[in-house]
C-alpha cells in the first residue's frame, strides 16, 4: 500500500434541514486515480466542496488530513496553495479571452499587478504541450471546441502546481473520441505521479481509469472498491450506488404494436444560421412509425440537435430544404407553435439552457407549451393549471413537496420529468427526445425509460437522440447513425452492437 495523500475522516455537513454528508470517509493514495460515484444528490459535489474550501473550515464536522497534516481551509485559494485543484463540471473559462489569459486568470504572471505577457504566453504554451494541445495560447477560448476547452482547464490546473487534481464530470460535454483522449491523458499523468479524483456518471469510463472506486449513497460512504484486487464491472458499481441489484437497466417493452409511418423526413438539408455556406444537416431522410422508438446516435456536433430543431418548426438553421410528412401529409411548419399544433414535441437537450424556466414553479413550467389547455380566451384558470401539474407530477412520480416548488430546486432527474410533463401535456403524437437522460442518475434514468415505454404503448412515436451507445441500443427499435450532418447508417436494434455502430462512423469518415 502506498502513502496516503489525502484522508477525509468522518465528514458531516448539514444544511438547514438536510444532512448532506453523514460521516463520510475517503482515503486517497498518492499516485492513484480514485473515482467517486453515486447518484445525483448523493453528496459527491458537497464532499469536494468541503475539500476545496468552498465550504470553509468550521462549517462541517470531521477532519481533512492532507500530506500528513490536518487542514483548515477558509477559501479555495488556501487549498490551491497546497496543490489541491478542482475542475468543475461547468467550464469556468472566459470565451472572449485567449487560452493564455484564461490559464493565468487570478494567478497572473508578472510583478506588482503588471502582467508580463511574454512570460504568460510562453508558460501557457508549455502547459498546453503537457496536455497535448498544439494550439497557440493566444487563440481565443471561443474558437476552440469543448474537448479542447476541457484540456485547457486541465492545463490551467497544472499551472497552479496541482498535486491532487479533482475532475468533476470532466467528460459530460465531450464526445466519445475526446472523452477517450482525456481519460488516456489522465492515465499518462498517473504515470508521472499525479494523484487524481474523478467524479463521473459514466461508469464505463470509471472502470477504464480508476484504481479505486468509492461509492457514496445518501450522504454516506457505502464502500470502496479496489479495482486491482477484484473484478469490477458496471453492474457491480450500480449495485453499490442504488443499494440493490438492477437486473435490467432498460425496462422491457412488450406487446407494443408498431403501426403506420407517423412522421417522415425526406432529403432534409439545413444550413448554419450565421455561416450560410456551412451545411449542418445534409440530405437526411428518416421515418418513425406509431409505437416505435427510433434512436439517433451520433457524436456531439454530428448535427443531431440541429436536425431535431429544424424539424420542430424551423427553430434552428437557415435555408431549410426537404419534405416533412406527418401522418402521410406534407406539412410546412414555420415556427414552434405550428409544430406543436401538428402534434410534434421537441424535448430539448439542455434542461437549464432552453428547456425549463428555473425561476418558476413546476405548475408554470408544466403548462407553458400548452397555455390554451389551461386558459379560456387568454385568461388562466389557475385551478385547472394546478390540477394538471399535480396530475403529471403523480403520473411521472416527480419527487417534490408541491407543484409550487421552483424547478431550479429540483434534481436533474426530476427536472427532466417536469420537462417531459410539459411536452406530454401538449398531447403530441411524435416526441423527439434530445439526450433525455444526460446528467441524471441510474435510478432516474430507469424511470425515464419506463415513461418512454408508456408513451409508445399509447401509440405515440418517439425519436430518441443520444450519445450513449448502450442506451440507444437498449431502448430503440431501430437506430439511425449520424455523423457530420449525414445519416451514415441504419440498423435494427436487434442487429446493433457498439462495434458495428462505431464502424459505421469510422467508415463514413474514411470515405471522404
Amino acid at each position, binding site marked *: 500500500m502506498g502513502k496516503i495523500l489525502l484522508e477525509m475522516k468522518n465528514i458531516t455537513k448539514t444544511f438547514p434541514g438536510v444532512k448532506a454528508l453523514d460521516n463520510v470517509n475517503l482515503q486517497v493514495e498518492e499516485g492513484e486515480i480514485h473515482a467517486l460515484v453515486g447518484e445525483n444528490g448523493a453528496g459527491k459535489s458537497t464532499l469536494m466542496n468541503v475539500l476545496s474550501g468552498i465550504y470553509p473550515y468550521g462549517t462541517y464536522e470531521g477532519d481533512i488530513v492532507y500530506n500528513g497534516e490536518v487542514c483548515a481551509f477558509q477559501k479555495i485559494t488556501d487549498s490551491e496553495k497546497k496543490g489541491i485543484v478542482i475542475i468543475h463540471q461547468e467550464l469556468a473559462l472566459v470565451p472572449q479571452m485567449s487560452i493564455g489569459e484564461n490559464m493565468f486568470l487570478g494567478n497572473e504572471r508578472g510583478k506588482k499587478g503588471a502582467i508580463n505577457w511574454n512570460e504568460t504566453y510562453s508558460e501557457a504554451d508549455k502547459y498546453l504541450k503537457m496536455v497535448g494541445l498544439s494550439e497557440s495560447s493566444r487563440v481565443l477560448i471561443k474558437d476552440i471546441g469543448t474537448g479542447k476547452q476541457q484540456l485547457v482547464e486541465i492545463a490551467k490546473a497544472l499551472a497552479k502546481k496541482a498535486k491532487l487534481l479533482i475532475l468533476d464530470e470532466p467528460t459530460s460535454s465531450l464526445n466519445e473520441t475526446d472523452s477517450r483522449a482525456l481519460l488516456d491523458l489522465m492515465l499518462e499523468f498517473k504515470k508521472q505521479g499525479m494523484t487524481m479524483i474523478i467524479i463521473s456518471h459514466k461508469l464505463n469510463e470509471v472502470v477504464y481509469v480508476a484504481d479505486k472506486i468509492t461509492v457514496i449513497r445518501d450522504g454516506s460512504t457505502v464502500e470502496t472498491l479496489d479495482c486491482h484486487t477484484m473484478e469490477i464491472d458496471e453492474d457491480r458499481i450500480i449495485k453499490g450506488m442504488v443499494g440493490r441489484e438492477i437486473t435490467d437497466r432498460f425496462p422491457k417493452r412488450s406487446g407494443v404494436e408498431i403501426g403506420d409511418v407517423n412522421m417522415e423526413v425526406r432529403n432534409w438539408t439545413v444550413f448554419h444560421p450565421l455561416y450560410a455556406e456551412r451545411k449542418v444537416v445534409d440530405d437526411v431522410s428518416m421515418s418513425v412509425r406509431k409505437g416505435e422508438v427510433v434512436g439517433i446516435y451520433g457524436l456531439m456536433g454530428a448535427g443531431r440537435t440541429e436536425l431535431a430543431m429544424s424539424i420542430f418548426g424551423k427553430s434552428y438553421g437557415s435555408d431549410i430544404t426537404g419534405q416533412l410528412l406527418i401522418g402521410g401529409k406534407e406539412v410546412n411548419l414555420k415556427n414552434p407553435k405550428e409544430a406543436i399544433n401538428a402534434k410534434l414535441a421537441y424535448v430539448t437537450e439542455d434542461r437549464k439552457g*432552453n428547456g425549463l*424556466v428555473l425561476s418558476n414553479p413546476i405548475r408554470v413550467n408544466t403548462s407553458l407549451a400548452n397555455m390554451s389547455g389551461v386558459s379560456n380566451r387568454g*385568461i388562466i384558470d389557475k385551478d385547472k393549471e394546478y390540477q394538471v401539474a399535480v396530475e403529471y407530477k403523480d403520473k411521472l412520480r416527480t419527487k417534490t413537496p408541491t407543484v409550487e416548488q421552483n424547478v431550479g430546486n429540483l434534481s436533474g432527474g426530476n427536472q427532466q420529468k417536469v420537462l417531459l410533463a410539459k411536452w406530454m401535456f401538449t398531447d403530441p403524437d411524435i416526441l423527439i427526445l434530445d439526450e433525455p437522460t444526460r446528467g441524471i442518475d441510474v435510478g432516474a434514468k430507469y424511470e425515464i425509460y419506463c415513461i418512454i415505454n408508456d408513451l409508445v404503448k399509447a401509440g405515440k412515436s418517439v425519436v430518441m437522440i443520444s450519445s450513449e451507445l448502450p442506451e440507444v441500443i437498449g431502448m430503440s427499435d431501430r437506430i439511425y447513425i449520424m455523423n457530420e450532418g449525414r445519416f451514415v447508417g441504419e440498423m435494427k436494434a436487434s442487429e446493433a452492437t457498439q462495434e458495428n455502430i462505431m464502424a459505421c462512423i469510422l467508415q463514413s469518415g474514411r470515405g471522404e
Partner: protein
Amino acid sequence: MAKYMDVLKKNAMLIILVLVFLFFTAQTGGAMLSPLNFNALIIQNAYVFILATGMLMCMLTGGNIDLSCGSFVCFMGAVGGVLMVVKEKGTGVSILLMLLIGILYGCVLGFLVAYVDIPPWIATLAGYLAFRGWGTAILLDNSTTGSIAPIPAGFLKIFSGKIFETPITQFNVVCFVVGIIASIIVVALNIFTRVSKLKKGYEADSLVSMIVKSVLSVFVIMLFAYKLAKAGGIPTALVWVVAIVLLYSFITSKTTLGRYFYTIGGNKEATRLSGVDTRLIMFFAYLNMAVLTVLTSFVVLARTQAANSTAGTNYEMDAIAACVVGGVSAYGGSGSVFGMVVGATLIGVINLGMQLMNVDADWQKIVKGIVLLAAVVFDILAAKKNQNK
C-alpha cells in the same frame, strides 16, 4: 415564530413604507396627515405609477428598461401644447393624434428591440437624447418663452382636477361613499376567493391572515376616502392610476399574455421553443410602454397646465426606482404590480415628507439614492438566504 418572520419578510417593503410614513408624520408634526397632502401625494406621483407600470412589463422580460420615457413625456407635452394651444385643435382630436404618435414610436422602438435585437438601453438612450432636444426645439419654435400655455379646460378636466368637486370646506359625501363601496368590494372578493378555494379543496390563506388583510385594505381605502373627501373630491389622476394598476394586475397575474412576460424573463429560449412568439411579446412590451408614456404625458401636461422643456426630467429613473424598490427583479422574471405600487408609494412618501420638512433638494436626491441601494441590497440578500435553504 418562523411563520411570523416569513410574513414580515414577505411584506418587508410594506412595513418599511408604514414606518417611513410614521416617521415623516412625527417629524412634520402631523402635516403629513393633512387632507391636502394626501391629495398632493396622489397627484404629484401619478406619473410614477403609470410609467412604472410600463417599466414593470419591460423589466419582467429580462431586466430591460426604457430610458427614453422621460424625454418622450416632454416631447409629447410639446406636441400636445402645439396641437391644442397653437393650432387650436379640439381636445379629442389632440388626444387621438398624440396617442397615434405614441403608438408609432412604440412600434419603431419595439421593432428595433424585438426584431433587430438592439439592446433596449441603447435603443432607448437614443430616444432619451433626441426627444428632449426635439421637444425643446418645438417649444422654442412656437413660443417666445419656451413654454406653451394655457392648456384648454376640456383637457384639464379629463386628466387633472377632481370628480364631483366640492369646496374644501365641505365634506365630499360622494367621495366617501365611493370609498365605502370599494371597501365592500375588496372584502367581498377576499371572502369569495377563500370560500371558492376551500370548496375546491385547495390550500387557502388562514382565516386570520385573510381578516388582517381585509382590515388593513379597508383601513387604507377609508383613510384615503376620508382625507380626499375633506380635500374636495377624488382627483381624476387617481382614477387613471387605479384603472391602470387594476388592469395590469389582472394582465400579469391572470392572463396567458402576462404569464409569457414572466417566462421570457426567466428563460427566453425555453419560452420560444414552447411555441411562444417571444419577439412579439418583446415588441408588445415596448409598444405598451410608449402608450403608457403618452398617458403619463397627459397627466403631467394637465397638472402643470403648460408644456415645458423640463417636463419629465428623470421620470425614467423614478419609474425604474419604483420597480426596483418594489421588488421587481433587475434581471427579469419576477415582480408584481402590487410590489411596484408599494415601491412607487414609498418613493412618493419620501419625496413629499422631505419637501414638508424643507430638506434641501440635493439632500433629497442623496436620500433617494440610499433608499434605492438599500432596497436592492435587501432584495439580493433575501434571495441569497432563500438559496441557502
